[in-house]
C-alpha cells in the first residue's frame, strides 16, 4: 500500500499481484471447461457436467478471495458471515426447487405434444 493510505485495513483493497494471480487462475478455470465442452474431450455427458460444475465452484471461490477480497478479517468477520448465510440460502433455494420439481414431474401423467392440443 502506498503512503497516502492512512486508514486501518478494515477493507482489503488487494494488490496488483493479487489481482493478476486471480485473473490468471480464473482464465485457466474458464478456458478448461469451455475446452472440455467445445472439443467433446470427455465422451460421457454426465462426467463432463460434473467436471464443469467443479471448475465453476473453484472459480467462484477464486473470485471471492482475489476480487471481492472476502476473508475472515474484513468487517470483523461479518462479510464472511453474510456470505456463508447467503450461500446456505442459495443452496436450499436451488437444490430444493430442483428436487421438488423433479419429483413432481416424475409423478405426473406422461404428456405429449399431442395431449396438449386437446387430443
Amino acid at each position, binding site marked *: 500500500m502506498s503512503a497516502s493510505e492512512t486508514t486501518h485495513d478494515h477493507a482489503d483493497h488487494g494488490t496488483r499481484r493479487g*489481482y493478476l494471480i486471480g485473473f490468471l487462475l480464473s482464465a485457466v478455470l*474458464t478456458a478448461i471447461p469451455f475446452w472440455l465442452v*467445445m472439443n467433446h474431450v470427455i465422451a460421457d455427458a454426465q462426467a463432463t457436467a460434473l467436471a*464443469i460444475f467443479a*471448475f465453476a465452484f473453484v472459480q467462484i471461490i477464486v473470485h471471492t478471495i482475489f476480487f471481492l477480497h472476502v476473508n475472515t478479517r474484513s468487517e470483523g468477520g461479518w462479510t464472511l458471515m453474510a456470505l456463508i448465510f*447467503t450461500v446456505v440460502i442459495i443452496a436450499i433455494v436451488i437444490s430444493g426447487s*430442483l428436487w421438488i420439481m423433479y419429483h413432481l414431474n416424475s409423478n405426473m401423467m406422461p404428456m405429449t405434444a399431442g395431449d396438449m392440443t386437446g387430443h
Partner: protein
Amino acid sequence: MTTHADTDIDRDAFYVTEEEHHDADGATALGFWIYLMSDALIFATLFAAYGVLGTSYAGGPAPRQIFELPLVALNTTFLLLSSITFGMAAIDSHAGKVRSTQVWLVITALFGIAFVGVELHEFAGLIAEGATPQRSAFLSAFFTLVGTHGLHVSFGLVWIAVMLVQIGQRGLIPANKRRLMCLGMFWHLLDVVWIGVFTFVYLLGVVR
C-alpha cells in the same frame, strides 16, 4: 480494560473523530455487501427457475441448437478482462492517482459495453430465428436469467459513467473512494454470477 481511569479520560477516548469516520466507511461496505447478497438471492431464484424449466422445450429449439459457444467464450473473456481492469482502477485510486484511475475505469466500461453489445447481438439472433421468450418455458427462463444479468451490467456501466463524472469534479476524495469500492464489489459480483450463467446455462445446455 481496568476501571481505575477517570471518567473524563474515558469520555475523551470515546469521542475520537478518526474512529467515527472509520466506522462510517466500514458500515457502508458491510451494508452494501448485504445488499449484494440479496441481489445474489434474486439470481439464485432465477437459476432455480431455469434449472426447473431448462428442459421444457415445448417442441421448440433446444440449447444445443441455438447456443453459440464461441460467442459466449468471447463474452466471458470481456467480462473477465473488465474485472482485472477494474482491479487496476481500484489500486490506483488508493494510491491517489486520479488520471490512471479514470483511464482504467474507461477501459473497464469499454469491456462492459462490448459484453452488453455481444449479448444484445446474441439475443437479436435468437429472436430472429424464432427463439423468442414466448416460444417455450426454457426460453422464458433463459431470457429472464441472462437478461437480468445483462441489465445489471448495463446499470454498472451507468454507475461507472457517474463515477467518472464525480472523480472528474472532485478528484479522489474519501467519499469517491468509498463509492468506487462499492462499485467494485458490484462489478466483481456480476462476474461471479456470470460464472454460474456460462456454466449452468450455456455449457451444461450444450452438453445435455
